[in-house]
């Protein structure tokens, strides 16, 4: 069983000589690393917004950035900055601040690669987020809420209405800008190796502006047209849709999207869940449209990527769907040190779901009205994302600019020494320790169930609050179902609420047990799934038939599949389906509001043991070459590693039965360990994410002798070593030949 992320190749670059242009960049993404011309790219970048810095200082400031060890910068190229009137643009002809071509030449001459982010949405704390103001004056181009009003983003210094990306005229406006920009940059000549650009971002933080509740927006004409065509694609005939929905619609054109969550029986749910899933299609089609324009103008010899404004990109974000047309994806985070677990689960998810998991924006300094980040926040959070699998970081902002503060390089080129020293040391250590070549060992995968995520999003108690926004500060630090309805919606129990609690239970229990696990969701590919020894997925009354089949195939191929608490009896369209259920037993007994290991659980489902017939909460069934393990536990509220500590022995038993031997498990459940390896080199990250000093012992079977990589001092202990970990600190320990 291979534990590592499988090798994935991006689309190969085509030779552009036939167009008479410069040769295209030859790139590929292998094993979560970007290679250009066969050489790996050290994906550490800093944001430098040229139009906000005096052009005379571009060169000197860039040298300061290079001085920290960066050989890549990122910049937006804002539509509203370059457009001076409709169809008229200034790329430095009038205002030298806007001479993006010169900025790119300076970068290229300095040997600095560039990540280009042309929008159209950029935020960047700019008034109207980079959209020209005139776009909002045309109400035809705007999205609509369920009540017919235009949704507004309440961002300072001016709130603005949100455009509909599916309006053909909006798309034409964006294309006009992109054509002008590509012309100013020289199109493919701006790409590496003839230019500095090595990747382009297709739009920014496309997430319905975090107003992601399905019944909030978009009900505009073009969105509804897209919805109808999506349904037509999905169902083929109106009769088939009517059969699923239990409706009598005469044609696609008469289908209206639901405007509120309403379901009295399982048959009502597909319509609600389809509309919620359509939100994912709406977003991905927006990005796909922008990506197509960029491909047309810059060719397909450049990686395209996208980023999400949350750490855990749950519905309506869909990484799997987006990687059909993007090369890679990332997430953005500006966390304080106390948000460790919020960031951790997002990184665990992204590092398993993106080909090249990057932090497209990671804090370096702060937005002017946000709570400040201390250098300790910066140090702890930066190492925590690297520890858990982020393979590239763009530090936003590495060069300070208007509406931002606290970056290591000021607008005039002066430096903030402590921050400057931190970044210099960070990059030096990452490279010296060989982190970029190593792999994180995670034999266990915890899967979010996308269908239940959708149900939870639709079941939000307070529209326009969505599942996405309610987990903004961390999915599991407080009950994840706090703003989710406990209604059953025609099912036999409140699946949305109970699912979120089940997810929290597994997250905290795996963490408390010191298990090394990744996170993903049920859209994960078969190939990626096969890289794990044990896969855990919460199951309730219904579950998509194809997903059930995929999970069963994983077990049949030799994996251990952990499901429960219920056996799904319906598929996603609420038709009978027993793909998994036929391998699961009928409950012998249900115990409501029970006490298990001193922890309150909502329900215990007991089954008759094979041998003794005694009641048991967990049993395993052989499936092909693997096993299906059913855990009949409907958990209560678990919000911390301490809450879940009593379940550690259960997790330990589950893991061992899947052939996973515990490795580097700390004696204190609050301490977190990540194991990285390449050949005979071993790198451990040991984190204390609490506000107290922790003394812990870490047992190991092999891998020594060990050394503190920061200080170079040896760590004594043949089969275990003891450490005192400062609050909010991460220790890097080398073993083997490291």
């Amino acid at each position, binding site marked *: 069983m291979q534990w590592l992320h499988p090798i994935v190749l991006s689309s190969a670059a085509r030779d552009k000589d036939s167009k008479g242009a410069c040769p295209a960049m030859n790139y590929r993404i292998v094993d979560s690393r970007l290679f250009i011309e066969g050489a790996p790219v050290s994906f550490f970048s800093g944001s430098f917004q040229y139009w906000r810095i005096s052009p005379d200082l571009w060169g000197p400031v860039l040298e300061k950035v290079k001085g920290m060890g960066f050989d890549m910068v990122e910049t937006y190229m804002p539509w509203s900055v370059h457009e001076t009137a409709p169809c008229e643009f200034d790329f430095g002809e009038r205002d030298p601040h806007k001479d993006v071509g010169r900025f790119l030449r300076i970068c290229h001459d300095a040997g600095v690669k560039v990540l280009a982010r042309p929008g159209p949405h950029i935020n960047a704390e700019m008034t109207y987020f980079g959209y020209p103001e005139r776009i909002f004056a045309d109400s035809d181009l705007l999205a609509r809420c369920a009540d017919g009003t235009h949704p*507004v983003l309440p961002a300072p*210094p001016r709130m603005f209405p949100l455009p509909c990306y599916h309006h053909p005229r909006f798309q034409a406006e964006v294309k006009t800008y992109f054509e002008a920009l590509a012309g100013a940059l020289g199109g493919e000549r701006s790409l590496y190796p003839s230019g500095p650009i090595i990747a382009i971002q297709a739009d920014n933080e496309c997430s319905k502006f975090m107003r992601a509740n399905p019944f909030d927006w978009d009900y505009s004409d073009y969105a509804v047209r897209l919805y109808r065509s999506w349904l037509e694609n999905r169902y083929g005939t109106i009769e088939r849709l009517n059969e699923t929905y239990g409706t009598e619609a005469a044609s696609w054109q008469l289908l209206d999207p639901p405007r509120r969550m309403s379901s009295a029986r399982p048959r009502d749910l597909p319509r609600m869940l389809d509309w919620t899933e359509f939100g994912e299609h709406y977003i991905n089609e927006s990005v796909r449209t922008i990506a197509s324009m960029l491909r047309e103008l810059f060719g397909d010899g450049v990686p395209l990527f996208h980023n999400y404004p949350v750490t855990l990109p749950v519905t309506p974000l869909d990484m799997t769907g987006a990687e059909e047309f993007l090369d890679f994806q990332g997430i953005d985070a500006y966390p304080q040190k106390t948000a460790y677990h919020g960031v951790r689960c997002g990184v665990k998810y992204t590092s398993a779901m993106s080909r090249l998991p990057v932090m497209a924006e990671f804090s370096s300094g702060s937005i002017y009205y946000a709570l400040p980040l201390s250098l300790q926040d910066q140090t702890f959070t930066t190492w925590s994302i690297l520890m858990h699998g982020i393979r590239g970081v763009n530090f936003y902002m590495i060069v300070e600019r208007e509406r*931002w*503060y*606290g970056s290591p390089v000021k607008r005039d080129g002066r430096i903030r020494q402590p921050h400057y020293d931190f970044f210099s040391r960070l990059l030096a250590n990452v490279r010296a320790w060989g982190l970029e070549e190593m792999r994180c060992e995670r034999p266990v995968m915890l899967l979010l169930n996308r269908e239940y995520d959708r149900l939870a999003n639709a079941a939000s108690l307070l529209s326009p609050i969505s599942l996405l926004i309610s987990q903004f500060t961390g999915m599991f630090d407080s009950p994840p179902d706090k703003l989710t309805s*406990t209604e059953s919606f025609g099912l036999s129990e409140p699946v949305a609420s109970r699912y979120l609690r089940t997810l929290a239970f597994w997250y905290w229990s795996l963490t408390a047990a010191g298990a090394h696990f990744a996170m993903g969701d049920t859209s994960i590919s078969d190939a990626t799934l096969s890289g794990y020894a044990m896969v855990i997925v919460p199951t309730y009354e219904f579950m998509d038939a194809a997903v059930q089949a995929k999970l069963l195939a994983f077990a049949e191929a030799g994996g251990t599949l952990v499901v429960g608490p219920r056996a799904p009896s319906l598929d996603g369209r609420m038709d009978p389906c027993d793909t998994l259920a036929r391998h699961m037993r009928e409950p012998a007994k249900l115990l409501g509001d029970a006490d298990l290991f001193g922890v309150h659980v909502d329900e215990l489902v007991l089954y008759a043991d094979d041998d003794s017939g005694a009641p048991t909460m967990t049993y395993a069934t052989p499936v092909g070459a693997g096993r299906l393990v059913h855990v009949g536990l409907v958990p209560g509220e678990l919000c911390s590693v301490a809450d879940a500590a009593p379940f550690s022995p259960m997790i330990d038993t589950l893991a061992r039965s899947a052939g996973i031997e515990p490795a580097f498990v700390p004696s204190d459940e609050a301490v977190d360990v990540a194991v990285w390896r390449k050949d005979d080199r071993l790198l451990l990250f040991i984190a204390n994410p609490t506000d107290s000093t922790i003394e812990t012992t870490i047992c190991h079977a092999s891998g020594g002798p060990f050394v503190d990589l920061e200080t170079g001092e040896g760590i004594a202990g043949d089969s275990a070593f003891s450490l005192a970990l400062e609050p909010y600190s991460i220790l890097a320990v080398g073993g083997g030949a490291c």
Partner: protein
Amino acid sequence: MLAKDITVIDLGGDNWSRLLNLPRELARVRSGEAPSRRVLLVVFEGLRVLKAIDLLHGTEVEVEWMGSWRLDRVAKRTGYDVVVALENSALARVCGHAQRGMDFRADMLEQWGGYLKGVAQEWRRTIFTWPPGPSRIPVPSAGMVQAAVSALVPDNTIGLLAITERGRAWASVVLGYSGGDFWLLSSLDAVDMEEADLREGRLELACDMLASRFGGRVRALAIERDLLFKIASTRVPAAEVLWGLNSGEIKTIDYPRRWKALLVAASLLGTRFRKNGGGC
């Protein structure tokens, strides 16, 4: 009142961090050891409760619901100091009210006024609280607020607030006001004096440099951090303010009389007749 293209520049690093943390620290000093108020959020639809949660911890709370007009009993039985009851459509309705009249070109003050009007329209229709609050929410017009600010802040002003620690700048903020708009947000970092000693004429120097950098007339107030905390914690802040003005621990430059009067009036309003809360 807030310029569309407000300039937010040179805020510094540690200096600005301290400033943003300051309100929280002052609130802590002012409230002393008094426990924070516990808030219960009840989301309901018609006559049934969909969920009640402890707003701080997010945990679910069992409530006996007798309708939105009997929140006093919910508070009494659950022991929460504050109960907020929202019909599940309340936020969407408030957004709808605000969005219906929203002009993207309008001043942000006016835009926020739209949301406040939305809350006022939903007050006691889909939004209820215990303690019950006013019977209706007064929404001052943006014009009234603008007129009040214009009367208070002389045109073409650059205001500097510096909080010092033994005379050295510890945190600072610079605000520019002109033509009815706040157009600038900055700090002493703009003149490379982020942590400069402001004694012996250097506050005046900072003002001169700010004037030459941003134009306008600079009006400054510098206050020692210790005194600021004393003002926050004392029961009679006006006494500390007057003492500071006379002793030089509060230093002003070109400070309009109306601002001084406002400072004293605000500190009088902060008088507390009981320990920890119970202001006049």
